[in-house]
């Protein structure tokens, strides 16, 4: 279980997370939704220790990672797998080397077994016989799947997805959704997904949390979020141009142009 308490993070004067509270239950998929630039990425980068928050704590099975030194963090990070928005494949290496990276780095298998393990991970994301291709030769959807195979290579029990369906066509987006669901079932990982794709959120989530102005303003099952009474959440999930979220910025625009 991941428990995030009172998390705050600012860049210079710009406060991004402001006392955020979120509980991520074990073995479930929690989806964090929110507009662009609301700090969703910052949230999961704090969770994996890529960014250090100013205040608050992130407990993973009771261990607070915000207080760990670099060496402890390295040990804890072995439990994490992360899929990046642009897949972030190492473009100097072929697909096989990308997926095998952490296996070789941590010497998890003898060298002669690595090809088989890599093939197995790639087949889990529905890819075969592409170990020799370079990332530049892959389509967007394939890159994400290879990124996913790389993220699950070390058999992590926590998976973080940074906008897994962004930039994909609807069919490929749904393939990724199915993969996320099947991975939760096959490896039983706890996962956090950040997205603004509501179709994907409803499909993969056990729990949805809405991030707005640095705080989680509502948490619930997909059904509860769909029928929410909170006007801010309702505007976002229904994708309306007019509502409390945009009213505020319109007032701001009017104020500035005056």
């Amino acid at each position, binding site marked *: 279980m991941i428990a995030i308490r009172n998390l705050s993070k600012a860049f210079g004067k710009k406060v991004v997370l402001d006392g955020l509270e979120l509980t991520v239950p074990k073995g479930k998929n929690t989806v964090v939704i929110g507009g662009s630039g609301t700090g969703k990425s910052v949230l999961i*980068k704090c969770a*994996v*220790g*890529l960014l250090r928050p100013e205040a608050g704590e992130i407990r993973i099975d009771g261990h607070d990672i915000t207080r760990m030194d*670099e060496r402890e963090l*390295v040990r804890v*990070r*072995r439990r*994490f*797998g*992360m899929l*990046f*928005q*642009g897949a*972030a*494949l*190492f*473009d100097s290496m072929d697909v096989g080397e990308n997926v095998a*990276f*952490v296996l070789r*780095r*941590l*010497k998890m298998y003898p060298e002669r077994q690595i090809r088989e393990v890599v093939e197995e991970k790639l087949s889990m994301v529905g890819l075969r016989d592409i170990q020799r291709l370079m990332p530049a030769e892959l389509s967007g959807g394939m890159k994400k799947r290879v990124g996913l195979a*790389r*993220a699950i290579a*070390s058999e992590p029990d926590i998976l973080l997805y940074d906008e897994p369906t962004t930039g994909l066509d609807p069919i490929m987006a749904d393939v990724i959704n199915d993969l996320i669901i099947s991975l939760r079932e096959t490896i039983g990982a706890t996962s956090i997904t950040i997205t603004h794709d509501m179709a994907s959120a409803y499909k993969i989530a056990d729990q949805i949390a809405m991030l707005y102005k640095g705080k989680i303003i509502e948490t619930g099952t997909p059904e509860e979020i769909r029928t929410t009474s909170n006007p801010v959440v309702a505007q976002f999930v229904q994708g309306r141009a007019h509502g409390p979220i945009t009213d505020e910025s319109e007032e701001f625009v009017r104020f500035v142009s005056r």
Partner: protein
Amino acid sequence: MTDSTARKNGAVRLAELLGERVYAMVLDLGAIFTLFVQVVSSLVRPPSEIRNIVKQMEEVGIRSMPVVLVTATFTGMVLALQSYAGFQRFGATSFVGSVVALSITRELGPVFAGLMVSGRVGASMAAELGTMKVTEQIDALVTLATNPVKYLIVPRVVAATIVLPVLVVFADLLGIVGGYFVSVHLMGANPYVYVAKTYQYLEFKDIYTGLVKASVFGMLIALISCHHGFVAEGGAEGVGRATTRAVVASSMMVLISDYFMTSFMF
């Protein structure tokens, strides 16, 4: 009235600009020193990066060889040409060999190799690491239980520190050969006198101080370029900016550190 306020604003603006630049430079220097400490402290920790070091040595060494050698040859040649023209005025042309050998080994070999490597290797390091940074590949390394400083920067710094002196050995050699060629075959100097004069005043110290300098240049170039790549942000434009900064800063550092090393070592 308006004129004086405008001038004052200009002066204030200038001072501000200067202050910002100096502040940014101090920040960079501090970051580069921190990076140096991190590199040294992660040098000996497992896993060993020997394969990456060898790969980088090939990149920095073998691939920079042609450009460094061409530069060194022509430097030696033009040096012989110029000293010959100058020394002719007071009948000291027999010393051209000594001047070429001393200038190349003590100064021009290491400095020109350093400048060429700044341009070639510094740019490629900054661009490669900068691209990795803006496409989140460096973050990905961290999530794959890998320390990016150790995995990416240590091999580059170690390789550049080891390889640059090797490049300079060849540069020295070809510079002197270039000088010999011009003096003997174009200026009609006596080959035996030329070779004798080359050896007569050349001390071992001239060569090894040049190599020590080269080593320091290599380390500085790699550290500075990797630093600028690592802090790149803002897409392709940011990578471009990081690359420019890396080349400018490392070339300047080569020349500045050269002066101080020369003044301490001789």
